[in-house]
């Protein structure tokens, strides 16, 4: 689908009329993210979080160019070429989906551009394919599922029915869950990507004799599954990664999500100063609650700003070292990079609750602490 190209150039700092600024220290960021089509909510949150941090910092040396990839790999590749060749950006960021990241990131780093991932964390870029110029500020794809598996052990689940879409990130999800989960598998089902009716799978769950259900169905797929599951009369406990329970889609799921435990590296009630400031500022600016995607965009911008204070982007080695220090106040509290430049961080269990009229998540407790990813050992840098 050749959608209208949404071109939005947002210059964070208005250039003052006579003000001369040094070319030195200036960083041009190219953000490619999904702003139209089915997955637009995620890209909009990442963009809004990123731009909020940029606005709050007020650093005039940061310039951001934003483009819409429409969730299509071929468009993302075209945009990346344009940004690198004609816009001459220094740093790239923004991609939501792993298949798009695989199409863009290796090419961008090969051309000497930094890439800071605010969301996608495919395993291929975490292990042997790691790169000095590639930083993941969110998580490696398996991480949230590993946290869900750890929670399932704590909750005493022994026989889980597992469900994920039939595509690479879906397989990573079940791999991640099984890496930490110690019980049996009552069933393992791959659904179609974009499937909207789960009656057949719910019937299988009912017949399987499972004691719990793990599912990874991001976006609209999760909405459909949860609504149908709640209406099916099957009342096994459900656990999943935060992707089906983020602020953007919870309102569309409604009551069906209440009480469900999900795992995330962030929640709006995480108790630290940076997070309180972020949540308040985000609501003030956009008049809605932030999602985990917004928190990742916000952290990505703050990581970049912290490195800009320490080094010049033209000196790639110094800038890379400055990024790797992760010397910024993350909304997640503790945050550092492991050797493959993916996060070492804590993961939490959250529960869906209703606050007034709004469905949101409440922190329940830790799931994994100081957790890195399983691929770091394969990374030779």
């Amino acid at each position: 689908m050749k959608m209208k190209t949404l071109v939005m150039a947002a210059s964070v700092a208005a250039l003052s009329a006579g003000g001369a600024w040094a070319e030195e220290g200036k960083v041009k960021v190219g953000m490619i993210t999904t702003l139209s089509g089915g997955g637009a909510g995620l890209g909009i949150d990442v963009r809004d979080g990123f731009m909020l941090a940029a606005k709050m910092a007020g650093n005039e040396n940061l310039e951001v160019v934003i483009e819409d990839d429409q969730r299509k790999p071929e468009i993302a590749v075209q945009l990346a070429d344009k940004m690198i060749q004609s816009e001459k950006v220094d740093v790239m960021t923004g991609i939501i989906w792993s298949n798009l990241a695989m199409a863009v990131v290796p090419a961008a780093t090969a051309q000497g551009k930094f890439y800071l991932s605010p969301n996608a964390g495919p395993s291929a870029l975490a292990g042997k394919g790691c790169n000095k110029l590639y930083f993941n500020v969110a998580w490696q794809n398996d991480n949230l599922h590993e946290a869900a598996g750890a929670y399932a052990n704590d909750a005493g689940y022994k026989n889980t029915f597992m469900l994920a879409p039939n595509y690479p990130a879906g397989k990573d999800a079940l791999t991640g869950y099984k890496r930490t989960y110690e019980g049996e598998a009552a069933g393992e089902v791959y659904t179609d990507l974009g499937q909207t009716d789960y009656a057949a799978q719910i019937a299988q769950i009912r017949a399987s004799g499972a004691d719990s259900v793990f599912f990874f169905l991001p976006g609209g797929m999760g909405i459909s599954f949860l609504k149908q599951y709640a209406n099916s009369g099957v009342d096994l406990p459900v656990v999943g990664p935060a992707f089906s329970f983020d602020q953007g889609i919870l309102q569309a799921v409604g009551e069906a999500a209440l009480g469900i435990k999900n795992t995330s590296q962030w929640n709006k009630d995480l108790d630290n100063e940076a997070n309180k400031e972020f949540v308040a500022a985000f609501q003030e600016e956009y008049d809605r609650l932030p999602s985990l995607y917004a928190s990742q965009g916000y952290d990505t911008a703050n990581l970049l700003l912290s490195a800009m204070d320490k080094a010049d982007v033209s000196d790639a080695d110094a800038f890379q070292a400055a990024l790797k220090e992760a010397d910024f106040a993350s909304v997640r509290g503790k945050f550092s990079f492991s050797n493959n430049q993916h996060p070492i961080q804590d993961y939490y269990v959250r529960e869906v609750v209703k606050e007034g009229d709004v469905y949101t998540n409440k922190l329940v407790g830790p799931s994994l602490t100081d957790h890195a990813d399983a691929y770091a050992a394969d990374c030779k840098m």
Partner: protein
Amino acid sequence: MSLILLIEQVLNGVQSGIMLFLMAAGLTLIFGVMGLINLAHGSLYMVGAFAAAAVAAATGSFLLALVAALAAAALAGCLIEMTVIRRLYDRDHLDQVLATFALILIFSEGTRFLFGSFPLFLDIPSALSGPVMLPGGIQYPLYRLVIIGVGLAIAAGLFLLIARTRIGIQIRAGEADREMIAALGVDIAKLYTLVFALGAALAGLAGALVGAIQSVQVGMGEPVLILAFVVIVIGGIGSIKGALIGALLVGLTDTLGSVLLPLLFANFMEASAATSVGSSLASMSIYILMAGVLLFKPTGLFGEA
């Protein structure tokens, strides 16, 4: 697999087939009578779902929401028929595909403009929520049974409309020879608008009914549209009966394929590989069905040569 599970899956297949029928009936009517390929049919489905969600949020009544979905989709159908579609009847199919594809984009971005990028909430009414116990100890969601009932009633209504009423005679005559019925004094432009609005209303109703158990979001119509095209190709273009049989075949093949194929492969493969291969093959199954039907009946099951 137990018999109960099998019966439940057959019910699921029938229910998804009935929903497909509501989409495919409009599509096949429009193609049969006007000779028009309408890619924007999925957008009308989305319009119905969004109208229902908006009205349900404002009034809390599911019945009003359904009425709103019918009205909004029929209205949108009339509007695009009179402004765009009407100019396409004499053009070739490629022009029609291009123009209606443009309509998809306009509808999608227009909906995003009005409702934002986040999915909307639409829930089933509390009277229809929860499962019921069927004879034989089968637990089945009441709402899905209601969908089957509503769909069958609409199918019966359509058959009566086409076979027994004056409008139906005109529609059938329009399919057979449009110049002749125009010469006989039937206002063909009005008839076309009516048929298009009817098809649109059916799509809107399907969108609202399905939106209550799925997610109401921009772009929700396109996956269904592809299936609906498969249905009318299998059933025979222009045939309502074909659309019903085709929709049930596709619904059953899709549902039972996704359940039975992984089990079949599990007999001679390792479990997780069987799941993977079985699921991949299951998503191909309806296209294999379509190819098989076309091999023996190139015009579809009930199509006229």
